[in-house]
């Protein structure tokens, strides 16, 4: 159980206020001073570890759900805890606790430090606070501080948007989730930095029915945004309507024609392809361990020369945007593929050190219960010059993919995307809607087969899973033509 705490704090964050990013948050609430942090970081190194790090997290996740025409439930989740990491060579020791008393943290520090068992030494730690220089979140009118009534208005608007779209829409669900995460990171190299991260998501799911068929469509909006997003960028009504539109379209969808064919990937949601096929194989850990197909390809041509891909956490307000990563590194735009040539990996601190590279702000973790690993943030295939219509017109017979159930890639580069909704391309035009297609291939093959790139950049809002950790990401792509891909289906 947590020790006596200061009532003044009580409830700033719980009352919907946004604190400023500062270590005093954990000091005021739990009495954890920078001096305590310094001591724990030193204790963690007594068994001979080379680097120690503390990650404090306090996070509140609010959600409201609507289904069957009623506001069904509201919930509030609080995640509190501290994780302690010790590195030695390629080794990681990790301990965590949801009890921020000095005793419990000291115990976790000793547990994590036991990874190094040879010798004992004293490493002096001197913490110097760093400030965030560039704010990439919209903290004006945060959803966290919004009254429940106003949140219910948003969710009702999305619900009605779907329900009123077409009389064949039979069931609708809508969820609004807003999240505020306060983190303070301190390490034995003297770093002390804090961040306050908002994250919002509005989801609409619509089921449509006619005499023969029943299908479900979904659409979402959100990011590290404030209320204005739902007024200017993507209104709840639009989100509801897009979900309903998908469900209705799927009613008349046919199964995909299986076999190899030209494929056009639509803008936005196809970002999942960039994320899976390009992003994951370029995370530094798989390359350091030489399991990724890309480990020996740095500096080599891996894609058609028209392809440029980068990851940039500093784009404002996106779902994957970050002021600092979960190791306290300041993210920068990281070029991965330039004119088809592989030029960079997504680095965290551990891999960067072992690969003699600089960290580029891609060390991320789901929560205080996990040690960070290299991850994507906002991964983007740069836009080209083609009008999307021109791209479709260039295909005589092929497949056009709009939205996906998801995708997955193996280190060997083999990937799969499950297409939720697509269209047949016949004589340069989109014709019959298609459901349940699968796209498979290898990342090297698809990168080389990108033959046209559109001028219509769009973004996909995703949740990425790796080693059991889920984190929010964005992936961006304009319309793309792939010369040929294997499409799976039932015809």
């Amino acid at each position, binding site marked *: 159980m947590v020790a006596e705490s200061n009532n003044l704090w009580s409830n700033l964050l719980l009352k919907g206020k946004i604190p400023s990013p500062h270590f005093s948050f954990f000091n005021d609430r739990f009495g954890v001073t920078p001096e305590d942090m310094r001591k724990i970081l030193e204790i963690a190194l007594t068994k001979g570890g080379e680097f120690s790090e503390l990650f404090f997290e306090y996070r509140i996740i609010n959600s409201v759900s609507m289904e069957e025409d009623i506001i069904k439930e509201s919930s509030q989740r609080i995640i*509190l805890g501290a994780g302690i990491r010790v590195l030695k060579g390629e080794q990681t020791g990790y301990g965590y606790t949801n009890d921020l008393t000095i005793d419990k943290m000291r115990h976790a520090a000793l547990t994590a430090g036991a*990874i190094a068992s040879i010798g004992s030494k004293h490493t002096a730690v001197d913490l110097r606070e760093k400030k965030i220089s560039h704010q990439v979140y919209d903290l004006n009118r945060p959803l966290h501080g919004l009254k429940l009534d106003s949140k219910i208005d948003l969710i009702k608007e999305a619900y009605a948007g779907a329900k009123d779209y077409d009389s064949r829409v039979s069931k609708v669900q809508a969820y609004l989730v807003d999240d505020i995460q306060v983190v303070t990171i301190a390490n034995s190299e003297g770093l002390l930095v804090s961040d306050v991260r908002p994250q919002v998501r509005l989801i609409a799911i619509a089921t449509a029915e006619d005499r023969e068929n029943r299908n479900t469509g979904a659409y979402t909006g959100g990011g590290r945004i404030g209320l204005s997003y739902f007024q200017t960028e993507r209104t709840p009504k639009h989100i509801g309507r897009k979900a309903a539109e998908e469900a209705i379209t799927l009613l008349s969808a046919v199964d995909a024609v299986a076999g190899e064919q030209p494929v056009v990937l639509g803008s936005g949601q196809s970002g999942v392809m960039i994320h899976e096929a390009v992003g994951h194989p370029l995370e530094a850990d798989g390359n350091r361990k030489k399991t990724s197909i890309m480990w020996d390809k740095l500096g080599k041509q891996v894609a058609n020369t028209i392809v440029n891909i980068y990851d940039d956490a500093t784009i404002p307000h996106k779902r994957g945007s970050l002021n600092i990563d979960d190791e306290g590194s300041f993210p920068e735009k990281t070029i991965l593929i330039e004119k088809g040539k592989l030029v960079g990996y997504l680095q965290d601190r551990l891999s960067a050190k072992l690969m003699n590279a600089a960290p580029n702000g891609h060390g991320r973790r789901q929560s205080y219960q996990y040690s960070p690993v290299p991850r994507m943030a906002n991964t983007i295939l740069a836009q080209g010059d083609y009008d999307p219509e021109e791209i479709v017109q260039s295909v005589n017979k092929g497949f056009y993919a709009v939205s996906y159930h998801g995708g997955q890639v193996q280190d060997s580069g083999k990937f799969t995307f499950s297409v939720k909704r697509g269209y047949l391309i016949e004589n340069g035009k989109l014709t019959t809607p298609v459901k349940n297609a699968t796209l498979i291939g290898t990342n090297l093959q698809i990168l080389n087969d990108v033959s046209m790139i559109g001028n219509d950049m769009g973004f996909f809002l995703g949740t990425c899973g790796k080693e059991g950790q889920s984190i929010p990401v964005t992936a961006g792509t304009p319309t793309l033509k792939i010369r040929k891909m294997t499409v799976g289906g*039932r015809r």
Partner: protein
Amino acid sequence: MNRSDKNLLLLAENLVFYGRKKGADQVEVSIGEGNEFSVEIREGEVERLVEAGSNGLSLKVILDRKVATASSSDLSKETLNHLVDRAIERVKVSSPDPFAGLPEKERIPIHVKKLKIFDPEIVKLPPEKKIAIAKKTESICLSDERIKKTYGSSFGTYVGTTYLANSNGFSGSYSQTSCSCGVYLQAGEGNNLFDEGKFDFSRNLDSLMTPETIAEEAIHRVTRLIGARKMKTQNVPVIMEPLMTASLLGFLYTCIDGHSVYLKQTFLADKLGEKISNSMVTVIDDGLMPGVPGAKPFDGEGVPPRKTTVIDKGVLKNYLMDTYEARKLEMKSTGNASGPNNLYLAAGKSSPDDIIKSVDKGLLLTGTIGQGLVPTTGDISRGAFGMWIENGEVTYPVAEITISGNLGQILKEIEMVGNDLEFKRSINGPTIKIKEMTVGGI
């Protein structure tokens, strides 16, 4: 043997009392407390070691048939009281829901001990032993010259206790243990690489597979894929290995889950009593089976699991529901508030070898990649790999293929059910043969 901490059960009961005092009609509080240990070995060295204990609390308040929930890993009294206060405030803006409410109190005795879900040997196992088991598993794999790279091996244990109290008078707790060991490998040459592995899970240390068996299976699973070919699109019989059958049943679960049923997001809504499958198909959820991963004395609402026959010789008999879903559907909770307990396809008579021998030309499905499961329609479309069967024999590996079908149709076309059912996860199945699926390729 129960290591339950009376203070945490008391905390749950007190919070229930607090919520009632503050005006809630009904309150439910659950607390989970656990200790995790995991070690990952790569190339013979400890790569990551995690050891930690933590706890978390969840609560639900109901007032005028309106619901609000909350959870926290900050267990300070002021935060918990605040969470209850706020939940009671929030509940007022929800809509009344005639189906909301705690489960009726059931007086079913719970024999936690008989469930065999707590093994003191796991609690006692020292870290050095755990590290040694993981190291041994990997080193056996690396001694095989076909294995070029390893993602590493792992060994993990979990020891935890669940506490639940509600305002209908339920108060209970149970402790559980688990251990797991696995290894993931890469084989192949140049740009033609294959990733596969083996992972085993058990509630008891004794019944966990040995490092030798895990290594042997992992090596077999990855090396059989070396030299995999692509293939032409065709409709053929598909044999699913037990892991693949379990994955198919996982999809079946989302189609018989009460929430999907009342929202009509499943093709099996309104199908109770209908023959949906071949009569050799019987699917059961039995959370009271001793020693299996999914056994538990009560679910997340305090309702004891039971033996529920979902499909009885091809006829859809039951959905799996929690209290709310059951009320919406005018049925009774099946004790599935925590998902599937121990869902399985009952074993048949055929040996896996006989099933393979029965196929002239077809696919032995050994792995899938990606999503592509649609409960609303039952449609399935996934990336896949496996072994090609010709004249009743496993011949060469195939990869970069897709499988497509529809669960409704697959259930009707299950032609053979294997005798190799094992209880390794919360969802289990034996080898099965499906008459026909579309295997997509070039």
